[in-house]
């Protein structure tokens, strides 16, 4: 079942992002659905799943972007690993923590990509790009990602497991 879902994401997520998501943009900024998906996969499924899906979805995203063929592949792969590590080591995951981590990771990934893209030309205007593109997108990603996490069945299972563990320790 999971494999089918992942295949569906690889085939459908980027096409959805380049077509239908244009109507969900605010001031020309769209949320990065692939980043949200990779974060949630890594967070709930572990580092390997996060990294593999990050690399695959990042590769597809690069194919439908005007930039170099490796920027998203690497940044999204790293997001997958970091999300997996966070998911493994975080004792209590609530929508608020997911929102905070997603915001920070989106900001980190966006700033890294902005720096790499500008390094190829020159470093002028990076701060402007971070202010006008990276920051609004991080806010957008965090809000949408939290909403998706909120409605996901995996979240309740993870939170109830945590509740059971706490009950075992008598807390």
């Amino acid at each position, binding site marked *: 079942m999971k494999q089918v879902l992942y295949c569906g994401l690889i*085939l*459908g997520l*980027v*096409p*959805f*992002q*380049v*077509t*239908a998501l*244009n109507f969900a943009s605010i001031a*020309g*900024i*769209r949320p*990065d659905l*692939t980043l949200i998906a990779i974060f949630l996969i890594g967070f709930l499924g*572990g*580092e*390997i799943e996060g*990294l*593999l899906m990050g*690399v695959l979805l990042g*590769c*597809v*995203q*690069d*194919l*439908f*972007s*005007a*930039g*170099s*063929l*490796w920027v*998203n*592949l*690497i940044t999204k*792969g*790293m997001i997958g*690993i970091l999300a997996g*590590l966070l998911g*493994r*080591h975080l004792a209590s995951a609530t929508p608020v923590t997911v929102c905070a981590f997603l915001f920070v990771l989106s900001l980190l990934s966006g700033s890294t*990509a*902005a720096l790499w*893209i500008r390094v190829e*030309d020159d470093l002028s*205007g990076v701060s*402007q*790009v971070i202010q*006008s*593109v990276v920051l609004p*997108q991080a806010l957008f990603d965090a809000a949408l990602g939290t909403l998706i996490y909120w409605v996901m069945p995996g979240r309740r299972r993870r939170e109830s497991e945590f509740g059971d563990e706490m009950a075992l320790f008598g807390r």
Partner: protein
Amino acid sequence: MLRALSGTTRLVLLLLILLLSVIFLLPKQTRAVLQAIGQPVSAVIFFPVELLTALEQKIFGVWDEYVALRHVREENRQLRRDLGSLQKQNADLRESAVAAQRLAGLLEFKEQFVPQTVAARVIGRDSTNWYSGVILNKGDRDGIRPEMGVMTTAGVVGRVVKTGPFSSMVLLMTDPHNAITGIIQRSRDEGIVEGTSQGRARIKYLPLLASVRVGDTVVTSGLTGGFPRGIVIGAVLSIQKEEGELFQSAEITPEADLSKLEEVLVITVPRSPDAHADAKIGKS
């Protein structure tokens, strides 16, 4: 942190990180490999993109034709069917007329100005917020190659930066990573047109003594890139001339409405056969 992982998982993770490091450290060497992998993947992903574009058009068609008129229909139950069908017919006919007019204009323009072009439809936008780009439904199989110029009847749109078997990626002229050689049509002063982060364009490196005026038309110079000479880029909006600078620059409003692109022409051969013949004679 890695200690918590099992041996195999740790190995797989490290191998994948190593692979990513190789891609990061040797981007030029790995580009060919990534391109080879990307070609079939892009061909497969193209079909969901086409499907979603068609679905999106259908949904918006339904919205325009039916949902927006629901209240009118409730008030006029008796006239609902006639009115609805007539409005639908009317909208269909208008849409067809507008499309026919647009396509006829495109065809006429194609015949008049540019000898070899391929008409393509815009099916999507860049998958990231980093670039101002559009995706076209024509690719390698239709003869489209990177660096080819893209235009509409109004003027320059951008240039092709990536191609797949069935699709291609166009970087719009308003993207800061784009550069086209242009000239001020009235004074014939030459400069480089680059995109700005505000979604406009700027012609740079104009000589200090160049007489540029607000409203002047900027056209392609035809010297480099995939454009023939004389395609409209835009009109001068403001001029920046600072003391101590060697050049002046001017902000341009693009002539083509880049936010509402539907059909475009990809210039496969930027110069007419006559121009090629002239160039050959010149060389000999």
